[in-house]
């Protein structure tokens, strides 16, 4: 990875954010809503990328962190009647605590065992949602009522169900997380994470405490995913158990692989591209999982670095 001038990297990212801002006024209604959803899910993918791309830990259970944010915020607002900011904070806290506990346990294992352990914890989380159906609504899920999704600042109020407000809220969260990951990746801490990915033993020998660095990465990754889940509950108003199922652990992996692991903009591109492909093919066939399966196999076979990873390798070495 060659050294980039900070101006170039930050300029590119601010440019992408500005482009998304302008698109809000240009896109037709259907794509406007779709892009808002994609930005929220891209935050999920960025959280996943934090752990998979930079630390090299392949988790098959990130749906539980997304679900923790989703249900943390959703239950707080529906069952406890909290306000929107308090519910969002509750979602974040649930994600942070859950990822701390899971990290402490799962990081004792490595490689294949790590994947299976994370998958099993996520399965327990998913089954627990079904088991406590009295509060969570089971596999039916819950709808967050429209009046509860209004942000009030004294006299003025923002209705999160309004398309423009929703788009701007999604963009705000997306921009915040994007710039945050960029800052983390360029910091000393980010370098240590990459060192752990490349050679954990050597990093340990150089005097770094790899366990606590990895644990911090799991917590950061889990909290970002929870932020995405909480935002999903508040912006789109649906809290369902399918978002905690295995499939939602596989999807961020697919998005990150497609866009390019260990690239800051890869998760957005992967999510955007995959959503677009599914949107187009759903006109011809309902079997969109078939597309997901074929995409996964083709990616690992021929394109292991993903779109941005390949571009970085061939042409733009400075890409963060």
């Amino acid at each position, binding site marked *: 990875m060659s050294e980039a001038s900070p101006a170039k990297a930050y300029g590119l990212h601010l440019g992408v954010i500005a482009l998304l801002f302008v698109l809000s006024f240009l896109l037709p209604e259907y794509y406007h809503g779709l892009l808002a959803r994609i930005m929220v899910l891209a935050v999920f993918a960025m959280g996943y990328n934090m752990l998979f791309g930079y630390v090299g830990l392949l988790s098959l259970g990130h749906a539980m962190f997304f679900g923790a944010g989703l249900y943390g915020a959703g239950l707080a607002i529906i069952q406890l009647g909290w306000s929107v900011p308090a519910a969002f904070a509750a979602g974040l806290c649930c994600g942070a605590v859950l990822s701390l506990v899971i990290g402490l346990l799962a990081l004792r294992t490595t490689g294949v065992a790590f994947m299976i352990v994370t998958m099993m*914890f996520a399965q327990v989380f998913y089954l627990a949602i079904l088991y406590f159906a009295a509060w969570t609504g089971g596999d039916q899920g819950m709808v967050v009522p429209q009046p509860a999704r209004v942000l009030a600042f004294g006299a003025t109020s923002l209705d999160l169900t309004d398309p423009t407000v929703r788009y701007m809220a999604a963009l705000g969260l997306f921009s915040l997380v994007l710039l945050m990951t960029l800052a983390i990746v360029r910091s000393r801490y980010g370098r240590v994470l990459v060192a752990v990915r490349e050679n954990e033993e050597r990093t340990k020998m150089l005097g770094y405490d790899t366990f606590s660095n990895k644990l911090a990465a799991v917590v950061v990754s889990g909290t970002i995913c929870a932020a995405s889940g909480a935002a999903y509950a508040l912006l789109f108003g649906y809290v369902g158990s399918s978002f905690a199922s295995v499939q939602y652990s596989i999807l961020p992996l697919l998005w990150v692989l497609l866009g390019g692991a260990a690239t800051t903009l890869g998760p957005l591109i992967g999510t955007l591209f995959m959503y677009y492909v599914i949107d187009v093919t759903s006109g011809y066939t309902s079997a969109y*999982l078939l597309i997901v399966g074929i995409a996964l196999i083709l990616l*690992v076979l021929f394109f292991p670095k993903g779109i941005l990873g390949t571009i970085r390798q061939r042409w733009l070495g400075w890409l963060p």
Partner: protein
Amino acid sequence: MHFGPHLLLATLEGLVTSAVLALTALGLSLVFGVMRVVNVAHGEFFMLGAVLAWAITSAIGGHPALGFLAALVIAPLIVGAIALVAERLVLRRLDYNPEATIVATIGMLYIIQQLALTFYGPEARPVEPPFSYRIVLPWFGYSGYKLSIIAASALLLIATWLVLTRTRIGLIMRATQYDSETTQAFGIPVGRVYGGVFALGAMLAAIAAVLIVPISQAHYLMGQDPLLLSFIVIIIGGLGSLRGTVVAAVLIGLSDGIVSMFFSPTLAKIIATLLVAMVLVFRPQGLFGTASR
């Protein structure tokens, strides 16, 4: 019924589950042991076996035993061929990298599942058992076919054990498991061994499915529970150990049968999954395995 007969019934049901589970998990365990590949699509090979059994029995007709025997031979062969093609086309090109193969087998899982949904449909379809003899016990009657599943599975397990320990093929497989590079240096075509083991693993799952399909039903989502249970079995039994796999399968099958008769199945699944995750975290070699190399 009193508690005693109730428990006996639960135990019998648990033994049937164990028998099928042992075969399925053995396939997964062989593939992991020899190739170091975690085959997430294993449950889908199980499902394919059941779906093909339905297709074959309904195509042949006549006496149910005829169709069933044909299915027992043909379905595993077809599933093995599919697995072999998948191994040649995908896994070998990935050089059996553990993480890449997991992603690729997840892809296979989705592809097989969707194709089954497209061509077989969302219905659950029954297969007629080859014979319907009822054994009458003092408290309840029990299906003779279910008991024959246990016997068939035991025979197959013994046969696999004999092949692994007494034949040249088994020796080659064990050598590849122990040290594939040295085996290659001795002139063994390791690539072909991998292909054969992957096909064999899928075939074991398919046989298990053909055996169970007359008492459950063929459905395109039926591969998910066996996959999770097989994972649990090979983790408890120690990855890549045949004896551990069988012991763990009996343990899990029995406790699954007994626990789900007295408690809510979802709660039973939650506790089992959590316990197994903890085993993997704190005792990664399994309860019966020895420390890994």
